[in-house]
C-alpha cells in the first residue's frame, strides 16, 4: 500500500515556486479555493521513489510569516494548525539563488515552527552568470536543513529534491537561531505561562492576532500572570526580531556564499534603463497593449470563424439525421448553438491569458506598476491597480481578487469598484459580432477599422474605470494609511511550461465555469422560445395560413411566417414584448431585449441567446452573424443592426454591470452587499443613459 505525505511549498513571490510545483506535479494538479475565502488553492500529487506519494500544496507567496493579507494568512493558519488535514509533514521553502539573503528570512521563521524543512535554491543556472558560488555543506550545517540546488528551467535537481522529500524523516527540526533573545524577560514569562506550547507559535499568535486550535490572542492576554505589551512595543519587537534574523543570515552567507562581482553580468540595468524610462517606458507599454489587442482581434478570427461554421453545420446535420421531435429540436436549436456560444470564446481567452501570463512571468508587470503609480494615484488608485485593471481584460473575478496586495484599503476599494468597467473577455464576443456587423472593413495605416474600434472600446472601458475612480476618490471619506512596496524582480524568459499551464487552467475554468451557466440558460431559452400559452401560439399554423391565404406564398415563405409568428407569441416573445418599450428608444427590438436580460446572469450569454432565438424558426444552415445581419427593424425598416443601434449596444455593454459572479466576488471581498448593489444600479443606469443618447444622436 502506498503512503501519502503532505508537502507544503512555501516561498517569496518571484522565486519560481510555481515552477517547482509544476515540475513536481506536471498536469497532475487542480486549482480550487480555500473553504469560505477566495484565496486560490493549488494542490497536486507527485510520485516519489520507493512507492511513496506526496500531496503537494502550493501556498500563496509571502515574504514572511507576518501576514498582511488574506493570502498570507492562509500560510500561517496552515502552519500553525497541526490538526489541519493538509498540515505538512515536510515544508519545502523555495528560494532564488540571486535573492538568497531576503528569501532566507522566511526560511528561518519556518524553522522556528519546528517543522521538517527542506531548502530549495532555485535558478541555479544563473549562478555562473551572476558570479555566485555556494558552500552547500556549510549552509546545510548552519541552517539545520538539507538543501536542493535546482533549476526548473534546465530541469536540474528535481529528482534530488524528490529524494530529499522521500527521506523527510531524517530532517532536523531544530531552529537555526534563537529569536527569543530580543527580549529575554518577555519570552521567559511567555514560556512560563504556556509551558506546553511552542514559543514562536505563541509569538505569532500574539503579533498576528490569528486563531489556531483554541488559542488566540485573547486567551493569551487573559492569563493573569502574563504581562502583555502595547501594539507599538510589539511592532518594535518585530523590528528587532527582523534585524536579529538578518544578522544571522548575513553571518551565514558571509561564509557560505561568495559573489564575484567581476564575473557578474547584469542585464537588468540595461533593460530597466529603457523599460522604466520616462519616455520610452510609456511608449513601449503602449505598443505592447496595442499588439495585444491587434492579436486578440486578428489572430483569433480564423479559429473563431471555423468554430462558428462548424457548429452551424453540426446543428443542421443533427436535424437531418435525427427523427423530428422535441428532443431533436432541443439538441439542434438549444444545446448545440449554446455549446457553440461557449467554444467560440476559447481562442480569444487563450490569447489574452497567454499575453497576461507572459507579462507576469517575465517580470515586466512590476515595471508597469512602477511606471503607472504616480498617474494612478491622481485618480485615487495605486500603481498596483494596473494589474487588476489589466487582468480585468480577461475577467473581473480574478482581477478583483488580485487587488489583495494593495496595502491601502481606500485604494483597494476603489480598484474593486471600478475594475468591472474594464473590457472583460465576456464582453469580447458581444463586441466582435456587433463590430463585424456595423463597422465597415478596411484599413487605416495597416490597422483594420474593426480592430481600432475594438481598441477604442478597451480605452472607453479604462477611461470609465479611471474616471469613476477619480469621482470615488473625491466622494469616499475613508482614512487609511497608504503603503506601497513593490518588488522589482529580475527579468526572466517566460517558461513555456508555466505559461502553457496557466493558459490551459484559465481556459478550462472558463469553459466549465461560465460554460455551465451559458448552457443552462441556452436550454431554458430554447424551452421558452419553443412553447407558448394560448391560441396565438398553439394555432399559429391555422392563423397564419388564413392571414396570407390570398397572397399566394411559397411553402418556404409560409413556413417562415408561421415560425416567426410562433416565436413572437412564445413565452420568450411575450416577455420580450413586455420590456420592449424600455429598450425601443435605444434602437433594440424585443429579441435583443431578451439577450440583454439574460446577459445579467453573464454577458457572454448574449451571443448564445441570439443564436438560440434566431435558430428557432430558421431552416437554412447559417452562421449566427448572417442571421443577425438579416434581421430587419420592424418599425424603422432597414437592418436592425445598423450603425446607430450597433454603437448604442456596444456602449451599453461597455458600461453595464451584467455579471452575477462579479457581484458575488465584490460582496465577498468588501464583506457587504452595499458595494455590489451600488455597482449594479449606478453602472447599469449610466449604461442605459449613454446608449440612449448614442442611438438618438446617430439614428
Amino acid at each position, binding site marked *: 500500500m502506498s503512503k501519502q505525505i503532505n508537502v507544503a511549498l512555501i516561498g517569496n513571490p518571484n522565486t519560481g515556486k510555481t515552477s517547482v510545483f509544476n515540475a513536481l506535479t506536471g498536469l497532475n494538479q487542480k486549482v480550487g479555493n480555500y473553504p469560505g475565502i477566495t484565496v486560490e488553492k493549488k494542490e497536486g500529487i507527485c510520485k516519489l521513489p520507493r512507492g511513496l506519494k506526496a500531496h503537494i500544496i502550493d501556498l500563496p507567496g509571502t*515574504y514572511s510569516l507576518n501576514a498582511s493579507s488574506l493570502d498570507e494568512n492562509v500560510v500561517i493558519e496552515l502552519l500553525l494548525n497541526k490538526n489541519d488535514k493538509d498540515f505538512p509533514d515536510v515544508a519545502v521553502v523555495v528560494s532564488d539563488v540571486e535573492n538568497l539573503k531576503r528569501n532566507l528570512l522566511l526560511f528561518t521563521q519556518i524553522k522556528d515552527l519546528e517543522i521538517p524543512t527542506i531548502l530549495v535554491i532555485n535558478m541555479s543556472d544563473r549562478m555562473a552568470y551572476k558570479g555566485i558560488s555556494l558552500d552547500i555543506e556549510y549552509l546545510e550545517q548552519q541552517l539545520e536543513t538539507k538543501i536542493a540546488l535546482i533549476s526548473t528551467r534546465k530541469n536540474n535537481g528535481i529528482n534530488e529534491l524528490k529524494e530529499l522529500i522521500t527521506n523527510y524523516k531524517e530532517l532536523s527540526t531544530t531552529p537555526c537561531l534563537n529569536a527569543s533573545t530580543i527580549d529575554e524577560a518577555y519570552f521567559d514569562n511567555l514560556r512560563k505561562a504556556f509551558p506546553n506550547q511552542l514559543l514562536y507559535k505563541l509569538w505569532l499568535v500574539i503579533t498576528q492576532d490569528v486563531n489556531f486550535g483554541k488559542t488566540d490572542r485573547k486567551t493569551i492576554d487573559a492569563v493573569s500572570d502574563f504581562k502583555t505589551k502595547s501594539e507599538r512595543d510589539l511592532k518594535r519587537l518585530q523590528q528587532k526580531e527582523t*534585524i536579529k534574523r538578518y544578522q544571522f543570515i548575513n553571518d551565514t552567507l558571509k561564509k557560505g556564499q561568495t559573489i564575484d562581482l567581476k564575473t557578474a553580468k547584469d542585464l537588468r540595468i540595461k533593460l530597466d534603463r529603457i523599460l522604466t524610462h520616462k519616455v520610452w517606458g510609456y511608449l513601449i507599454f503602449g505598443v505592447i497593449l496595442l499588439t495585444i489587442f491587434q492579436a486578440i482581434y486578428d489572430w483569433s478570427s480564423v479559429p473563431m470563424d471555423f468554430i462558428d461554421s462548424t457548429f452551424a453545420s453540426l446543428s443542421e446535420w443533427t436535424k437531418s439525421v435525427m427523427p423530428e421531435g422535441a428532443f431533436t429540436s432541443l439538441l439542434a436549436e438549444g444545446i448545440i448553438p449554446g455549446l457553440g456560444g461557449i467554444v467560440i470564446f476559447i481562442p480569444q481567452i487563450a490569447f489574452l491569458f497567454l499575453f497576461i501570463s507572459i507579462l507576469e512571468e517575465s517580470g515586466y508587470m*512590476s515595471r508597469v506598476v512602477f511606471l503607472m503609480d504616480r498617474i494612478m494615484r491622481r485618480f485615487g488608485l495605486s500603481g498596483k491597480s494596473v494589474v487588476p485593471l489589466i487582468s480585468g481584460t480577461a475577467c473581473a473575478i480574478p482581477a478583483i481578487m488580485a487587488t489583495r496586495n494593495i*496595502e491601502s484599503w481606500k485604494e483597494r476599494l476603489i480598484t474593486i469598484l471600478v475594475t468591472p468597467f474594464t473590457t472583460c473577455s465576456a464582453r469580447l464576443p458581444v463586441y466582435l459580432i456587433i463590430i463585424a456587423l456595423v463597422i465597415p472593413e478596411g484599413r487605416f495605416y495597416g490597422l483594420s477599422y474593426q480592430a481600432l474600434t475594438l481598441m477604442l472600446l478597451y480605452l472607453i472601458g479604462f477611461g470609465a474605470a479611471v474616471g469613476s475612480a477619480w469621482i470615488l476618490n473625491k466622494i469616499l471619506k475613508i482614512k487609511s494609511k497608504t503603503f506601497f512596496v513593490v*518588488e522589482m*524582480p529580475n527579468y526572466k524568459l517566460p517558461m513555456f511550461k508555466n505559461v502553457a499551464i496557466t493558459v490551459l487552467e484559465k481556459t478550462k475554468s472558463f469553459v466549465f465555469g461560465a460554460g455551465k451557466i451559458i448552457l443552462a440558460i441556452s436550454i431554458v431559452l430554447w424551452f421558452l422560445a419553443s412553447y407558448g400559452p394560448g391560441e396565438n401560439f398553439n394555432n399559429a399554423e391555422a392563423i397564419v395560413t388564413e392571414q396570407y391565404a390570398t397572397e399566394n406564398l411559397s411553402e418556404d415563405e409560409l413556413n417562415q411566417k408561421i415560425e416567426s409568428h410562433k416565436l413572437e407569441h412564445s413565452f420568450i416573445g411575450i416577455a420580450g414584448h413586455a420590456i420592449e418599450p424600455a429598450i425601443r428608444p435605444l434602437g433594440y427590438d424585443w429579441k435583443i431585449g431578451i439577450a440583454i436580460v439574460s446577459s445579467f446572469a453573464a454577458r457572454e450569454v448574449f451571443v448564445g441567446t441570439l443564436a438560440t432565438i434566431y435558430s428557432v424558426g430558421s431552416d437554412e444552415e447559417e452562421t449566427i452573424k448572417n442571421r443577425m445581419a438579416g434581421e430587419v427593424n420592424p418599425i424603422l425598416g432597414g437592418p436592425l443592426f445598423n450603425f446607430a443601434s450597433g454603437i448604442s449596444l456596444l456602449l451599453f455593454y461597455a458600461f453595464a454591470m451584467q455579471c452575477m459572479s462579479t457581484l458575488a466576488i465584490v460582496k465577498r471581498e468588501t464583506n457587504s452587499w452595499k458595494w455590489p448593489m451600488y455597482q449594479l444600479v449606478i453602472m447599469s443606469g449610466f449604461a442605459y443613459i449613454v446608449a440612449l443618447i448614442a442611438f438618438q444622436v446617430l439614428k
Partner: protein
Amino acid sequence: MTLADLKRGQQGIIKDVSSNLIPLKLLEMGCLPGNSVELVQVAPFADPMYLNINGSHLAIRKETAIHILIETIDE
C-alpha cells in the same frame, strides 16, 4: 538627509528608520539600519523610487522614503 534626497545612481547607507511609520514588509525586505541602498531609477516627478536595498530590488513612494534616514557614500 533622507532616502528621498538621493539622486539617481547615488548610493547610501541606511542610518535609521521610523519603525512606526514604515510598513513591516519593507523592513523584512532588507530596509534596515546599516544596509546599503542605491537609487536605480525614478518615475516622472521622482516618485515612486526604484531602489536596490541590500541586493533587494524594490519600488517605494516618496512619502515612505522621507522616513528613512541615510548617509551618502561618495565614490
